[in-house]
């Protein structure tokens, strides 16, 4: 057994095995660091920055940065929390997120983060961008809600290993692009997986919306992150 690495999170002394990211090491110690683009089992890309922490005074993405001995990590200081809140608010204003009629409501990670951070009204003006819905045989791609986390790009491949989703354009015009021919080959299970892995309601498997009643959805019972914090 290699020696465990010692570090602190918000002053609490923690230990973890070497080779873990800060996110994973904190989780092993019952500490929740919010993530949106990261998904367990996929290679982290650190694109959304919601997992930002301050390490020895410097900003780092907890989902990509390996934990090292002696790290002093700030996870819940007001400054870190405000920073994350601003990112969540920016995601809301740069898309068109109308939770009331969204079938992902209750299962949506962005919505759950907004509840956790008690966001009532974003501090930034809404941009109301004009975006469209694209239809594919098994699913709809609702660009109004996409946060460009790239989970679908990393997770969904055809049986022969080809990626179905990709990024297109740059900066403010960046969007998810779908290979129509490959998308037509997706099975029901893969379409369901794409919908499940999407943190928001951007990928909608056809004809299954609202099947789970209110009260039984993922975040109806407990807030996002509380499953990790319960393991303290």
């Amino acid at each position, binding site marked *: 057994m290699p020696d465990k690495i010692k570090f602190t999170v918000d002053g609490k002394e923690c230990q973890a095995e070497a080779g873990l990211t800060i996110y994973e090491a904190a989780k092993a110690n019952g500490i929740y660091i919010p993530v949106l683009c990261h998904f367990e089992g996929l290679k982290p890309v650190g694109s959304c920055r919601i997992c930002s922490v301050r390490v020895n005074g410097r900003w780092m993405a907890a989902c990509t940065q390996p934990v090292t001995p002696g790290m002093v990590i700030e996870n819940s200081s007001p400054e870190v929390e405000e920073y994350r809140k601003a990112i969540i608010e920016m995601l809301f204003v740069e898309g068109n997120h109308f939770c009331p*009629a969204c079938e992902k409501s209750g299962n949506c990670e962005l919505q759950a983060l907004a509840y956790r951070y008690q966001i009532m009204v974003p501090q930034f003006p809404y941009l109301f961008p004009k975006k469209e*819905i694209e239809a594919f045989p098994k699913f*709809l791609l609702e660009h109004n809600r996409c946060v460009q986390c790239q989970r679908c790009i990393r997770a969904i491949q055809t049986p022969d290993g080809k990626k179905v989703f990709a990024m297109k354009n740059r900066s403010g015009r960046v969007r998810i692009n779908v290979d129509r021919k490959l998308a037509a080959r997706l099975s029901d299970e893969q379409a369901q997986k794409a919908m499940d892995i999407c943190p928001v309601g951007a990928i*909608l498997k056809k004809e299954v919306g*609202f099947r789970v*009643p209110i009260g039984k959805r993922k975040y109806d019972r407990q807030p996002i992150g509380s499953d990790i914090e319960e393991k303290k």
Partner: protein
Amino acid sequence: MSRKLTIEPVTRVEGHGKVTIQLDDHGKVAQARFHVVEFRGFERFVQGRPYWEIPVLVQRLCGICPVSHHLAGAKAMDIIAGVAPEKLTPTAEKIRRLMHYGQMLQSHALHFFHLASPDLLFGFDADPAIRNIIGVAKSHREIAVKGVLLRKFGQEIIKATAGKKIHGTGAIPGGVNKSLTPEERDFFLKSPAPFNIDTMIDWAQEAIQLFKKLHAENKDVLDNFAHFPSNHLSLVRKDGALDFYHGVLRAVDAEGRKILNDVDYQDYLKYIGEEVRNYSYMKFPYLKKLGKEKGWYRVGPIARLNTCDFIPSPRAQKEFEEYKAYTGGKPNNMTLHSHWARLIEALHAAEVIKELLNDKDITGDNLVKKGKKKHEGVGLIEAPRGTLFHHYRINDDDQVTMANLIVSTTNNNQAYNEAVRLVAEEYISEKPEITEGMLNRVEVAIRAYDPCLSCATHALGQMPLEVELYDSKGRLLDRKRK
């Protein structure tokens, strides 16, 4: 000097409307109109949305009776999902009925106790400071408490079937997403008094007695106020029974002769036309058979009790027989009798809720069916305020391409105008002074139909009542606020 009276907004109704009354040089009413001054545009912005989202999206039209839009949308989507409304699983249909009758109970209780009872208990000329639900709570505490709890009971039924009291997700294309657990069912059947269904049935019956007592004391006003002949339209069950959830379309004239004889509502466009007029955002529907001038009709409680042959629950049927006997079996055209009709319906809703709660299917687990997809569907339901039409088309990608909604309040549009004109002519014409009580009478006439203007224009908002007086050149002479 001619004058124009404006009542804006009309209070104790849902949504935002105004009334204008134009007086000529002799103070005689030259024109009286009811304007709906809000605009919403749901029919446009549902375009492009996936069809299974419609029941949840369109219910946002309204916070008072969202269940109506939820279910009308779901019924249209049943057709699109290839499942005829009669072909739903027994559990799905009964859960939807329970949700809907729960809403009927809560909405009718809200209207009678919170919105209408202040006028009936205190009189049309009473001080507006007490002529409201708080005034009722102070001087008629028992009535107010019953009103609040009847409404709460209906709301709890909605929560148990749709997941939330307002804007739930229970109905999905081809069925529902939940049924009742035995615990949920027993909560309504067996909770200690007063919060159980037996008490609610008793209270609904007491509310009818209260109306009858007020009627005996004020027969002249309640019978003659805004009494006008009209056609009446509603859904009825295939055997002619009162049914709020599903059936065929029937219309009768002021004498009770059938104009539409139990037709399939999927073909509603064959029978109903809509006219646009330049002073209101609300359209004017009419029966094509009679044309724009004569084809207008009333919907809602008064129309439903005029079109149906009987009520399929014992206590409500007994009340219905007494109600029908009052007009000798002929259609009832008395505006303020809509309160009587509404309370009979509330009693019926409570009785049906009990029947459904005692049905074993209500806790079943066969919830959804699927059939061969169609590209077009019409959903019709009797909302608390009257017949509600939802009509959609979708494309091959499952996205909505067309939506047409004719809501209950829109169906009653001409009836409001007729009622406003009659009341203005009787109470305001050629009077030396315009009092608040006179203007309230105009509102009482509108209120009797329980309009929901937010729904009808597919803003929610409340502003103080404002009355403005103009001279014939349009100059503002006086403005009063309350």
